[in-house]
């Protein structure tokens, strides 16, 4: 296995590597620009981030209410 790690490396042709690098740069810039324009406003992003905790909170409150109501009904009898 130690011999395997010492096997020589190979590289793509320099011109092709450079072309690929430029292409990847262009793609990264294009994506960054697209992301900026497509990014929703702060309020929308905050609402998206908050909806799961809000639903969880409402669910917990509803469950607590049901338990309390059940206890009151049990005590009433």
């Amino acid at each position: 296995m130690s011999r395997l790690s010492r096997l020589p490396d190979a590289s793509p042709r320099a011109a092709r590597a450079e072309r690929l690098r430029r292409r990847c740069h262009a793609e990264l810039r294009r994506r960054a620009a697209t992301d900026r324009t497509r990014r929703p406003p702060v309020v929308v992003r905050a609402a998206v981030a908050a909806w799961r905790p809000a639903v969880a909170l409402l669910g917990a409150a509803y469950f607590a209410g049901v338990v309390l109501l059940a206890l009151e009904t049990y005590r009433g009898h």
Partner: protein
Amino acid sequence: MDRETELALVGGLREGDTDAFDEAYGWLSTPVFTFLLRLSRRHDVAEDLAEETWLRLVTHAGRLRPDTRLAPWLYTVARHLYLSYRRSRFLEDSAAVGLMTLWPYNTARSSPFEETAASELERRLERALATLPVATREVLLLVGVAGLDPSDAADVCGVTPETLRQRLHRAREALAKALDREAALHGPVREGTLSCQTR
């Protein structure tokens, strides 16, 4: 590359930072290309697949997880691309073994004698590797050549670490047998001595 630098690179890639891409490309382009070349055994195919691998990285850069490990990620994509290529082209494993004798190398050697012996060993190792089935070869390339941890290599191959260990064990045995066949065909090579063989 240490983990913090790698995480910073991933962060940069997620933000579309071209400097981060350059650093990642400088770090991993040669190993990924070498991996693909040894899998495909064709320079043009390896170049195409390496290009597609890096394009996949930049296409998915915004969706990378912050804790992504770049090397295993790239090797996984490269491997999948190669397997897809192989499926689509019905590539014969034994078709291009002869091409490996053209393998370039640039490792520093201490003397012409050692260089000759080492290059002969390397040529035999390359040929032995090239005769192995892809599933065997890829394990040796990932762990032995690329230096991935066996657990990372298991992720790349989509198997459990235990399965990977078993594959690695079998791959070592297969490589040893292939080297024995090489020795039977071309005679033994002793490191540090000049081989008189010509090809």
